[in-house]
């Protein structure tokens, strides 16, 4: 049984998501709330297996909720609900600790498939996001963290392995996990695991970046 919690301020969508979760026998709806404060209270009491959250909440940003959950409840998978799946929102969520995202208009089947995939250890990813991730890992902040802080372990941890870059590049070209698995002659499960790992690395990477920024501002 997978417990699910939904944080969504739009009652129509909240109802819709709750309906989809309720219709799935393998999912249990733990809580459905419409603001940040209620979500925090609920999380303090009991953490779900999967947290679905919108970003624009009436009393704060969903990013904060994602960050807190990732820090305090590492066993919880966080998925962000987004209208367009555009890179800014998705990347910010992943950096905060989300392991996937879901489009607001997803059909129930897609919705359930994504949650299943997430619990199985995979993370959904679009070609554009994959390309942004590739760029992000090649970009200067990693190098800056390297040189100015002198923490090579952090840098290595945040850097992608050759196989992970390969997977990201193929995703960016539009191949789905099954096709990539065939191309690389591995199982689809391996690919999903790679992607999840990449997400985690991005979160680490962004923490390094935050440390770097903080150092620059003289906070540390």
């Amino acid at each position, binding site marked *: 049984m997978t417990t699910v919690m939904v944080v969504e301020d739009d009652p129509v969508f909240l109802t819709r998501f709750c309906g989809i979760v309720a219709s799935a026998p393998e999912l249990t709806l733990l809580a459905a709330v419409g603001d940040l404060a209620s979500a925090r209270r609920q999380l303090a009491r009991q953490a779900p297996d999967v947290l679905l959250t919108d970003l624009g909440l009436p009393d704060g940003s969903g990013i904060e909720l994602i960050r807190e959950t990732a820090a305090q409840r590492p066993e919880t998978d966080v998925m962000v609900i987004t209208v367009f799946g555009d890179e800014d929102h998705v990347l910010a969520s992943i950096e905060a600790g989300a392991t996937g995202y879901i489009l607001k208009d997803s059909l129930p089947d897609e919705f359930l498939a994504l949650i299943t995939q997430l619990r199985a250890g995979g993370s959904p990813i679009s070609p554009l996001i994959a390309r942004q991730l590739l760029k992000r890992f090649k970009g200067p902040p990693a190098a800056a963290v390297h040189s100015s802080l002198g923490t090579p372990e952090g840098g290595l941890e945040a850097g992608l392995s050759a196989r992970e870059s390969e997977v990201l590049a193929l995703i960016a070209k*539009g191949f789905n996990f099954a096709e990539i698995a065939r191309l690389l002659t591995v199982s689809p499960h391996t690919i999903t695991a790679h992607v999840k790992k990449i997400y985690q690395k991005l979160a680490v990477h962004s923490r390094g970046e935050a440390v770097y920024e903080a150092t620059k501002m003289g906070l540390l």
Partner: protein
Amino acid sequence: MRPPKWACSERARGPREPTAAGTAFARVLLLLTLACVGAAMAQAGQGLRLERAEFIADNSPQPPEGAAWQPVVLPDLQTALEPGVFGGWYRLDFHLDRRPDDLQALYLPTFAYAGEAYVNGHLVGRSATADRPEFARVPHLFTVSPSLLQEGHNRVALRMQWKATFPARLGPVYIGPQSALAPRQKAREWLAITGLQLLAVFSATLGLFMLVLWAKRRDETTLGWFGVAALSYTAYLSDFLFIGTPGAPGLGMPIQAAGSALVDVATVLFAMRYAGWRWPRAEMVLWGYVPLRLHDDISSGLWWGGPVMPYISLVVVSLWVLVFASVAWRRRNIESFVLLLASPGCLITDVWLSHFAAPDAVNIVPYSFLPLFVVMGWLLVSRFARSLAESERLGAQLEERVSSKHAELEQNYARMEQLTRQAAVVQERQRIMSDMHDGIGGQLISTLSLVEHGEASMDRVAAALRECIDDLRLAIDSLEPTDDDLLPVLGSLRYRLEGRLKQQGIALDWQVQEVPRLACLTPQNVLHILRILQEALTNVLKHAQATRVGVATMVDEGCVRIRVSDNGRGFAEQGRGRGLANMRDRARTLGGKLEIVPSAAGTTLSLLLPIC
């Protein structure tokens, strides 16, 4: 050069022969020396100058008695040698009122060569050997014990030995208190030898410095000629460097003579270059002066041209004075006046020494070059310093200008960048507006009217709205930077549309391959491509009744081909007229081509994009 008082062969002997006093410096030096001497003489109150003597050519170790002594007046020069005779004797008689108490001295300003001096038959000293002509310039002072002298008649006898090429010389002889004569001897030694040694070292240093400078700046020929002049001058003075060092080698007469001639020629050439003149033929003639002087020297002036050589020399030393005068006349600046003032030293000293000086005066011609060299050196160094300062100033100016230009450029660049950005924003806004107007706007309105008229089922409305959302998402995707890579563009299309294909049971066969980068992938063009392919896939969804659709990329005849093929009913019946026209329009805008090949087995649509 100095004509006759010492006989013509004499001039060739030493370095440039005594000639004249001239430059202010040399004159002052001379006066100072004379003043010292005068003071010393006055203080001592005594000292006899003996100018009358008797001479006999005789090789015997003792002055011959009763032989044929000839009266001579000092200074005297003996060139001739009788066969088998290598020397001769001078004797000078003088009278003392009483025998002196203090130490006495015999002072011989000129006493060459290999001489022995006797006072009343007692040997008091010897002079240097006959090997080195420059020893003729060494003034000698021999102390004489008062006990050797006597009241009444006394006699000084001087024995000399010489060679044919180095004739004997004897200047006036002084006898008096040692305390009075020693300073005179010292002063003369300083002027005739030590001063010249210092000059030689000074000019060597100066010359080398100038030549090194010239090697770095070949265009500044004045530097080179000055260097040559100064080094030649050192060669001319070289034998003085080792005077008083027994056995030290001299450079020899020809080198001294060549040095002396070269100083003159190089100084004239310096003057001409300084004036900015270059007369190759005249300069060739001038160079002829060097071999002429050498020949004159080797032949000891005993050739047909010998008598005129001194005048030729005078002409040469006058040349640079004339050139400097001409420059001073034209330029009328301090620099050229100072140079003119310093230049005639040689001429003046030459003339003075030949015609007005005492016969045994020290040769001060070498000193006459000192002021000229100092002025030339000062001039070149200050010119060098000026040009250095000038270039530094120019450098600083240039740097300033470059930095101001740089700032200007940066400003311009920033302004341009801002304009470009503004233009891009305007363009993008227009593009999005027109896309919304043509696409999602129209679709929303038609969906709205369906709902308002109650004509549509919920499914149809949902489908229409989903299409709107897809449109919107593709428009958003087209904003992403592409890095000229087509595949991510297709990837995002797949991501957006595959769900709907799957829903309708249509399998997607994704066969994309790497294609060359396309520079034309601007957001606008990306949207065109996405719209064309979206339309193609929508057609498959709505009309083809296909079960499989393949998307592939390949390179084909200089184009990138994107192929969408289905196994449906064929294109003829599926097309919505307007949609197809739109697709062709968009393809044309892209500079590409749309190909549609219907067949019984399905339809193949290709978009060809030029590789640019």
